[in-house]
């Protein structure tokens, strides 16, 4: 081993700060502990213990994230350039942990209604959360690809979790085919970028083509090179699949309908958020010099998603498909924020923060709605229609109120958080002179009010046919009730008082 390689290896080894990834590691350990628990504990205790351990694992991870929130580990790339931690990645790690906790909560409500093993769900969930947390910290395509594929494969399993229901399996198959197709495209993009960045004939070629820093330097030198541009486009298309933006969104309604409700929530919130976190990292990292490509591309995606998402959702009666399509329209709004972040980097420095703020309001609104859906779905999980919501306000006023807050926040009705999220995106887009996108966004909001109003109307106004009337009021566990009320209050409070989050945006 020549001495200089030895020293080089030692230097790289020095950057392996395992403590930086402590939260992810605890999740992994917790996941394994769950499996062990299932073996050790008697049958009846398992059903109770498993969710609690899962929550404990998540809480521990959250604590660790907060412990060394601004530790010196930031800045230099860790693990030989694989991982790079910034405030944005820290915020997203908190986001994923909170989202997974809520998904776990919904799972505790939905899973008992179906004869499916309980442990594997939480095990896979924890592993997926760990992978999700790694994504925004990735600084190298290998790290990106591995984390992305872990999440995707975990989701294949979760989407097809109800082995006895054809819908869940078919959704799993569709998600599988689409997922692997998109990861193939992504991979092809990475390969092209790797190929062209390493090509010795080009100026600024680099050995570490996979590393974002090196790649960014190379791209800055020859932004017009066809292979670079096509490679970047293909990578962005892979991510477009993840966030469910048009034209890669055709699978969303079917998979959202087929998948179990907690998994739909996981897909709608965490997977989409991961896509956006990654997009922001790529677009402001390696592809920063490619603004002439990324802006038109993402603007087209945004405009199409806003229009397609809202139009398709207009006549939609099935609640889960509606959430899917509304997710597509929210992807459109977020893309407007991302475009604003790229368009005038200097003027609108706080645009990425606006995107993250929007993600949090989307988290609250969506999770509140999914929480209510979990309680309302009686028979087959896939078939939830407006009819089931008829006279919800009478059957359980609390669920009615939470639904109103959740859907209201998704729709962007003023007193609720969603409105502030949309407002920040609008102001950012205005300052970034994205006039056409704003026009489309305004039209989109108006159309979205229609189908959200339709849903709330079903819950509050329609008395429903006789058959639904005599359905017994929905039983609501104390913990479940508390979580839902907390979510609803968060939606209202964040709408009125942005406090720390507001300050955080300002300090960007």
């Amino acid at each position: 081993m020549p001495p200089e390689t030895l020293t080089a290896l030692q230097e790289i080894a020095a950057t392996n700060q395992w403590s930086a990834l402590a939260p992810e590691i605890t999740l992994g350990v917790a996941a394994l502990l769950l499996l062990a628990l299932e073996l050790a504990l008697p049958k009846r205790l398992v059903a109770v213990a498993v969710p609690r351990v899962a929550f404990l694992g998540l809480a521990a991870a959250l604590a660790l994230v907060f412990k060394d929130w601004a530790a010196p580990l930031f800045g230099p790339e860790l693990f030989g350039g694989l991982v790079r931690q910034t405030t944005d990645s820290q915020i997203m790690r908190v986001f994923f942990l909170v989202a997974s906790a809520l998904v776990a909560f919904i799972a505790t409500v939905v899973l008992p209604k179906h004869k499916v093993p309980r442990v594997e769900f939480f095990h896979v969930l924890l592993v997926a959360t760990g992978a999700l947390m790694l994504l925004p910290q990735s600084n190298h395509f290998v790290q990106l690809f591995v984390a992305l594929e872990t999440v995707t494969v975990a989701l294949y399993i979760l989407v097809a979790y109800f082995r006895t229901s054809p819908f869940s399996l078919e959704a799993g198959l569709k998600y599988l085919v689409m997922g692997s197709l998109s990861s193939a495209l992504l991979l092809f993009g990475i390969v092209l970028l790797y190929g062209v960045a390493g090509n010795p004939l080009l100026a600024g070629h680099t050995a570490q083509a996979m590393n974002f820093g090196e790649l960014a330097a190379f791209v800055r030198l020859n932004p017009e090179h066809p292979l670079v541009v096509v490679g970047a486009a293909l990578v962005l298309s892979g991510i477009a699949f993840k966030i469910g933006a048009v034209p890669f969104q055709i699978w969303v309604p079917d998979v959202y309908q087929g998948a179990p409700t907690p998994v739909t929530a996981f897909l709608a919130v965490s997977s989409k958020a991961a896509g956006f976190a990654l997009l922001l990292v790529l677009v402001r990292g390696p592809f920063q010099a490619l603004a002439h490509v990324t802006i038109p591309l993402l603007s087209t995606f945004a405009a199409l998603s806003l229009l397609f998402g809202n139009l398709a959702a207009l006549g939609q009666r099935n609640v889960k498909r509606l959430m899917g399509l509304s997710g597509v329209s929210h992807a459109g709004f977020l893309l407007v924020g991302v475009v604003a972040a790229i368009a005038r980097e200097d003027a609108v420095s706080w645009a990425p923060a606006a995107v993250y703020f929007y993600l949090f309001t989307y988290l609250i609104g969506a999770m509140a709605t999914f929480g209510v859906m979990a309680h309302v779905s009686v028979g087959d999980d896939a078939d939830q229609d407006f009819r089931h919501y008829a006279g919800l306000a009478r059957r359980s006023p609390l669920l009615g109120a939470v639904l109103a807050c959740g859907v209201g926040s998704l729709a962007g009705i003023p007193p609720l958080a969603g409105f502030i999220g949309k407002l920040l995106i609008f102001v950012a887009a205005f300052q970034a002179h994205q006039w056409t996108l704003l026009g489309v966004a305004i039209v989109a909001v108006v159309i979205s009010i229609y189908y959200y109003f339709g849903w709330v109307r079903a819950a509050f106004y329609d008395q429903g046919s006789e058959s639904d009337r005599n359905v017994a009021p929905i039983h609501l566990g104390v913990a479940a009730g508390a979580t839902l009320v907390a979510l609803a209050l968060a939606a209202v409070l964040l709408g009125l008082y942005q406090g720390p989050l507001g300050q955080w945006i300002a300090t960007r």
Partner: protein
Amino acid sequence: MTPVTTTLALLLLPLASATVIALFLRRRHNLAAALSVTAAAGIAALAATLIFAADRTPVTASLEWLTLGPLNLSLGFLVDDLAKLMLSVVAFVGFLIHVFSLGYMHDDAAKARFFGGLSVFMFSMLGIVLADNLFMIFIFWELVGFSSYLLINHYNQKQSAADASKKAFIVNRVGDFGFLLGIIWCWWQFGTTNLTELTATMGEGGVIVSTALPLLLFCGAVGKSAQFPLQVWLPDAMEGPTPVSALIHAATMVAAGIYMLCRIDVLMTADALQVILWIGVATAAYAALCAVVQRDIKKVLAYSTLSQLGYMVAAFGLGSQATISHQEYQLLDGKVAIDLLPVLVPAGAAAAMFHLTTHAFFKALLFLGSGSVIAGCHHEQDIFKMGGLWKKMPVTFWTFTIGVAAIVGLPFLSGFFSKDAILYLAFQNNKAVFGILTATAVLTSFYMIRMWKITFFGEARSHESEHAHETGLTMTLPLVVLAVLSVIGGYGWFFPSIAGSFAEAIPVAHGTAHTAMLLLSIGILSVGAGAAWLFYKSEPTDTLAAKSPAAFGLLERLKEGPDRFYGYYVAKVQQRFAMVLNFLDTIFVAGLPRVGAEIVSWFGAGARLLHVGSIHGYVYWFLFGAALCWAIATGLL
């Protein structure tokens, strides 16, 4: 009590009485009546102190009411000779009518509301009389319209009364439409609507840009004094109780139009006066013709009022623009004060006001007389059902006769002096007008004597008139006082005391012209009265209808004409047009967005159908997506 405080008290007294009645005395009828009458008495007393005050200088005061940008609108008084003359009419006649209504409305169910309404009317009328700028006149103009609406609608159970009051208010509003437009134009043209300032600016050579301005202001008078295009509401206004007809639709409110014209005669131009003249003449002639065929005693008097108002407007039209001479002198603080020398009042305005005053007296007398007749005959109003009342109601008969004598122009009564002044003025200025006015005078005496004979002579023609009885003292006393006023109203020693400078400007014929006018009026009287007396037998049917149905039918159609025209316009044209607009509104303006929403929902359905469910279909989307990315990346798109 300085003059200003008396004027203020004069204005606020009826307002106070109206508010007290409205708030506290709605059930206490007698107390409300008493309060209203005492208020009227107070007004008469205060007015007397103002009118007969020693120094003749005009009382002025004003208070800034509203400032907004360039507009600073203030409300104030200008009590000069003209105002004092009108004040005397309003105060004295008003008081007498209040006393009369004590008796007439004695057993009415809503007496409190009636007397409250009278007080509101007195407040608004005094507002017009005392106002010193056009804005204030307009405000009280509409309030007077409202009070006439309130009082015509007194018997609100009757559908006809409700329709009549609505018609009166709307027609007044049409007049106010033009009036307000004129005021706005005047404000923008002269920067102020204060009458004294207007006179001053006109005096310094201010020029009226276009005759449209005075004509628009004249619209107000047309609406209020029921001149030709807008005269349809006055006959219907007879639905109100008789004291209301006497006070509002004979003596004061309808005269407000002429009073307002005299107030702003500085703004008149020659051809505006020409238009006013011919409208006055047209109304006079038209109304006189219609009066000939009326059956209802109050309708006859209503049309006769219309005709006399036509006379007054014609008289005003005959006069020329006021010539203003003034003297400017520097005040201490450098402001220029304008001391108006006694304004040379135009003859037309003086004649109009003179006739207005005398008309107020004898027309009020006639109306109250008819009221007393109606009360006596237990609310029977059709003259062909009366007859032989001269024996049963002597006081009413004699006072009524004095009234008739005054209106037909029996020499040496007030009517003779004022009508001849107008005829003489017409004779001097415009022969054609003189001819028509003389013919109208003949018609006037014709229909008055007709009504007089049918009502009082012959034998009683119905059960009510059979048992008619003289009315009480509260009703007959005002009749007597008014009869006295109708007689002495025209004489030189009475009228100048209330008219001041207006009295000198009245055109009086001297020498040969004097005798000619005397003979003329005697001729008119004998021709008209004689024909009526001989022609009409006092039987239950109208002899004209019996004798020459064609003429009767013609006159009948003449009366119905405008009513049917307006009725057709409102019911057919306006309502149809409104229906069409409503239909268009609900179909197009509301329809378009619905169509838009429908189209959007089609797109929605289309987008939804794209989810075909088969994996192959979805992979095609991916192909399209990859192609799109590649195209945008390489700059194709």
